[in-house]
């Protein structure tokens, strides 16, 4: 990073100088959510491993995950996954040259923010009401 730079040529303007705009927010969130989902894959593999280990280990895993910190973590993963999945569609379309102009990119950025919030809430609503997560304890 900057500490390793021996020359003093100017760096390109970064977050400290740009006016915040929505496509910049979604770009940063895409990377942040992607890195966060590293933990999501870890939690998923731990779930598989716990199931493979046996009923006692599986019960311990469920016990941890339905605790309030566990739920907060899972909610965060759901939000990160919803956002990353929907925002990823924008990148795939841009790769085909679709929706690349400023107005369209702004619109799709807002659309993804709204849709990923709705999707996350829908997944959790279904988890609570249809799957009886509330009745499972905590």
């Amino acid at each position, binding site marked *: 990073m900057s500490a390793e730079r021996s020359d003093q040529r100017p760096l390109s303007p970064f977050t400290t100088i740009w006016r915040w705009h929505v496509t910049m927010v979604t770009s940063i969130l895409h990377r942040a959510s*992607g890195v966060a989902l590293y933990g999501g894959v870890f939690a*998923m593999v731990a779930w598989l491993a716990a199931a493979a280990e046996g009923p006692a280990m*599986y019960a311990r895993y469920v016990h941890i995950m339905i605790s309030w910190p566990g739920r907060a973590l899972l909610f965060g993963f759901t939000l990160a996954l919803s956002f990353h999945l929907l925002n990823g569609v924008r990148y795939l379309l841009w790769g085909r040259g679709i929706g690349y102009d400023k107005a369209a990119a702004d619109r799709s950025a807002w659309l993804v923010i709204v849709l990923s919030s709705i999707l996350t809430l829908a997944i959790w609503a279904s988890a609570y009401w249809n799957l009886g997560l509330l009745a499972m304890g905590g």
Partner: protein
Amino acid sequence: MRTSYKNVTGLGSAHKGVSHYIKQRVTAVALLILVPLFLFQFLASITTGYEGVMAWLGSPFGLGLSFLVISAMVVHMRLGVQTAIEDYFGGSLRTLALWLNGFFALVLWLIAIYALIKISF
């Protein structure tokens, strides 16, 4: 004219860019289909408790879907985090971070495969 100077100093293209791009996008499209399918099945299975989860993961569809989704995820996540590491780290810290990234991705995949094999037998 080109000399091998850049190879000695470790600069210039490593000729991995195109395959990185293609792999990232192929896994992205695969995950776009696999993740909603997996999530739907997963949410249904966890209501059935331990026995139900084992039955689903042991079924051909549950096993195949889990194998595909975890494999695509591990490749996609390794490539994505690699890009982030290359953006923010330099020198020996970058080398270490890239190594750890590859290591964790492989270990997570192997644990998942071991778990799925153990569940199906």
